């Protein structure tokens, strides 16, 4: 084993474990599991996250998998990975470079070694480094033998053979025996990071209880991996990250897509309306459809449509009927839905559209993240077509932003687009479970309108404050009327072609969206409220930007940070805020979409920090960029 000094974050205190071996204590560790798509890396990562949650660290995860369901075994295209960062402090990103990389085969090593911190710990399955696998990964020579890994500390473990040996007498097929190798690797990593095996053993029992042989095999592989760590001379890699101090309360693990689902069910409860979710399967939004479909007992009507257009059409139909009409998709689906979305703008219906953004253009990289739909949802429709756009900043925030989007949709009788993305969709974090009784009911204005005198009803008469139109769904006697995509006459809603009316309706539709700003929170600035430099961010980059700003502050720079969850309209005080600093930096996982809006709206010379790699922004690189700009 080659050993150099560890370079992970933290204090490096050592303590003595019960067994007598030294355990180093660290503030934060980042581990990445990488293997073939069929190696069960996502499963191992999720088990590790559960064990970490129970242990009491704060954590954040980053699953990363290919779009291909099963690329050829051992190939570079088939590598799947799962990163988890855990800490004794609150953390906001899944970490940039891992301190530890578990590589189950040469392809996984090849794909992920570049990310590993110099001096980091490399756990490899030496059994997989056969000449065939090395060739598939384009390795001219065996990296385990040619000295090319000398910069790292290596644990070469015979993971496959040891796992098979551990389950030998259970009478499994070779294939099934070999499949336990992820549990062996997991057991080894549990030992390295002093995690408890109990949560995983419970999970195995729950998951495989009906297949006692498989359950036993996975248990044995897990124990064998753990014992391997204990008995092999790798004591200097034994690390403990103490539990974090989090706000007291009941916590669970949540991903962004799960939070969207819970938000929708909760919104249905808070509006007392049945949820209709029309959707067409599309990565990375499909989970929302799948999970909602399993919740019929909450009165949920999921509708797997024949295409994206039908998906939004059915949601518009449900909204028109007075229900909670929702459609969910990703960028390519938004492109297909844009004409129907415009119908919802013209008919002014309360519709919620979820856009879990992914990497584009065209099919792009379906399983990779990006913030590239902002301008599409703002402007990607014919005519002057304003609608409300919100963006969630963390997995758990997806829950609250759904409630906010639904509130706005009903209060202003307007379609609302809520932006999430692949990163938020799949990343998991601890989340304080909200108390359903503490959440405000969401008002549904048409319930009051149904009781007014029909003589006073005009479908396009408006609330003087919000400019919301008088929306009354079908079924109410005396209110029969027709709506549609043709231009509407102000107040009466009849078809109208007059120039003055079109100008007025265009203005009203725009003004209605602007007035949402009067009913939403102003933007808060973290740090000095004026001065040299502001970092302005939106959406899923919150964690990376927050971390980078804090790191830059620790390096001695006075920097303000503000994060937008409301993209249209902007908070009322945004123009004022961006004008109070000498420099404004806008980091985005696109080529500068928010920056374009800020410059156009406020004539501010905002600069961009832009990465379009399909990966979340790197907090480390961003810190460097912030410090560079602050020092200029």
């Amino acid at each position, binding site marked *: 084993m080659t050993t150099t000094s560890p370079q992970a974050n933290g204090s490096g205190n050592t303590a003595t474990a019960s067994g007598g071996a030294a355990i180093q204590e660290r503030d934060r560790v980042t581990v990445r599991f990488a293997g073939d798509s069929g190696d069960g890396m996502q499963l191992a990562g999720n088990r590790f996250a559960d064990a970490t949650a129970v242990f009491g660290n704060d954590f954040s995860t980053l699953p990363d998998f290919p779009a291909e369901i099963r690329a050829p075994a051992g190939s570079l295209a088939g590598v799947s990975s799962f990163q988890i960062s855990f800490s004794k402090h609150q953390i906001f990103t899944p970490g940039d470079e891992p301190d530890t990389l578990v590589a189950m085969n040469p392809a996984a090593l090849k794909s992920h070694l570049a990310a590993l911190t110099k001096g980091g710990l490399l756990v490899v399955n030496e059994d997989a480094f056969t000449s065939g696998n090395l060739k598939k990964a384009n390795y001219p020579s065996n990296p385990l033998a040619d000295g090319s890994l000398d910069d790292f500390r290596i644990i070469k473990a015979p993971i496959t053979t040891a796992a098979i040996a551990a389950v030998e007498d259970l009478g499994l097929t070779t294939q099934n025996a070999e499949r336990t190798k992820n549990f062996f690797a997991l057991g080894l990593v549990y030992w390295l990071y002093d995690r408890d095996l109990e949560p995983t053993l419970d999970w195995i029992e729950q998951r495989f209880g009906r297949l006692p042989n498989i359950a036993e095999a996975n248990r044995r592989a897990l124990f064998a991996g753990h014992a391997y760590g204990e008995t092999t001379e790798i004591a200097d890699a034994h690390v403990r990250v103490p539990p974090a101090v989090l706000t007291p309360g009941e916590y669970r693990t949540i991903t962004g897509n799960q939070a969207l689902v819970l938000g929708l069910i909760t919104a249905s409860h808070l509006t007392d309306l049945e949820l209709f979710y029309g959707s067409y399967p599309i990565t990375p939004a499909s989970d929302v459809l799948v999970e909602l479909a399993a919740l019929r007992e909450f009165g949920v009507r999921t509708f797997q449509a024949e295409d994206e257009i039908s998906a939004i059409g059915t949601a518009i139909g449900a909204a028109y009927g007075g229900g909670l009409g929702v459609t969910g998709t990703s960028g390519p689906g938004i492109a297909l839905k844009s004409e129907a979305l415009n119908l919802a703008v013209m008919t002014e219906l309360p519709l919620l559209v979820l856009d879990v953004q992914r990497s584009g253009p065209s099919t792009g990289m379906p399983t990779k993240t990006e913030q590239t739909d902002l301008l599409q949802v703002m402007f990607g429709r014919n005519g002057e077509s304003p609608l409300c756009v919100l963006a969630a900043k963390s997995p758990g925030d997806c829950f609250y932003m759904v409630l906010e989007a639904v509130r706005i949709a009903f209060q202003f009788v307007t379609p609302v687009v809520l932006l999430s993305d692949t990163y938020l969709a799949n990343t998991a974090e601890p989340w304080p479970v909200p108390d359903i009784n503490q959440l405000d009911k969401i008002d549904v204005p048409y319930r009051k309108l149904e009781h007014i005198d029909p003589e006073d009803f005009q479908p396009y008469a408006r609330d003087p404050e919000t400019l919301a139109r008088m929306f009354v769904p*079908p079924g109410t006697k005396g209110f*029969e009327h027709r709506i549609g995509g043709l231009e509407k006459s102000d107040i009466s809603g009849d078809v109208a072609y007059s120039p003055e009316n079109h100008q007025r309706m265009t203005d009203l539709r725009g003004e209605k969206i602007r007035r949402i700003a009067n009913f939403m929170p102003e933007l808060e600035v973290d740090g000095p409220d004026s001065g040299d430099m502001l970092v302005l961010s939106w959406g899923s980059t919150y964690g990376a930007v927050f971390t980078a700003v804090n790191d830059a502050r620790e390096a001695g720079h006075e920097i303000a940070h503000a994060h937008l969850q409301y993209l249209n309209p902007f908070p009322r005080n945004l123009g004022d805020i961006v004008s109070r600093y000498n420099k404004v930096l806008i980091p985005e996982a696109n080529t500068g979409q928010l920056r374009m809006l800020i410059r156009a709206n406020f004539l501010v010379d905002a600069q961009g920090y832009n990465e379009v790699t399909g990966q979340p922004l790197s907090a480390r690189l961003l810190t460097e960029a912030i410090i560079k700009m602050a020092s200029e």
Partner: protein
Amino acid sequence: MVLHTPPSPELVENIIPIADEDLSRKDYASDVDTRWCPGCGDYSILAQMQRSLSNINVAPEKMVFVSGIGCSSRFPYYMNTYGMHSIHGRAPTIASGLKLSRPDLQVFVITGDGDALSIGGNHLLHVLRRNVDVKIFLFNNRIYGLTKGQYSPTSELGKVTKSSPVGTTERPLNPLSVALASEATFVARSYDTDPQHLQTTIEQAARHHGAAFVEILQNCNIFNDRAFADYTDREVRDERLLYLEHGQQMLFGENQDKGLAVSATGLRVVDAHGPDAGLILHHDATRPSPDVHQLLARCNYPEMPVPMGVIRQVTAPTYGDYLDGQIEVQKFKNRHDIAQLLKGRSTWQVE
């Protein structure tokens, strides 16, 4: 694994919302001036729709007309009910979402040959396949009227139109065949110039539980005049149309002197008084297999009489029956406690 829970019987019946007071045709007419060209077949269809609804006495506030784009799709504006004039081809989707979330409403879709079979072809297939309880009235004039005279997916091969000055190069779709291929549970045809037949057909569709598809042959006197005159003109219709009645023999001709029988390749015309009279088929609209229905749908002038009336009407649970049934069953079987749902599979306490 296949999970197929038959909906409870009380769900499988069509409940038409009826008005408290007696309503006449004019109660269903809105105060908006109709803007179709003078002489358009749509006027008759509008009048018969209003009469049919008045015959049933449907509650107007429970009635919703959803249309797409095209001449026919202006229809909802002229009805004193709820309505949405939506976007091109997508009316079936909006109608589906509306009906599934509001089973108390009666939802009619008004569409045309371009709207339903060209831009909206996909949605038509699926709304029929799913048997969503909406009634679809396709006004077929075999031309694009609102855009002033381009050929449509039902225009005959070789037809000269503005966008096919030397004739089209594509074969037309047969709307009834498309509906039958989609396993529609109700398929019928009528035409604009037979008010009584059209009213009856609309009422039959309205009373059907499930997706109903009605093709209405409609004359566009501006861009495709007399498109169906060869067999719908008063002087020739008895000879050239076959009025279908469930349970009755398929007879036509001025003196009901001809009938349809099975031939080696499909259907053939036989003399009702000749030696093959005994082979004349009885029309069975409820036959589960759509085979004979499909043969009827393919009867075209001049080789065969053109069938009118209900070709197919079978009983089957609707999409909504299944969906509402699942919700009922899952509510009975599972807890639906939001506080518990928010907690997920496991939680931990931070002190």
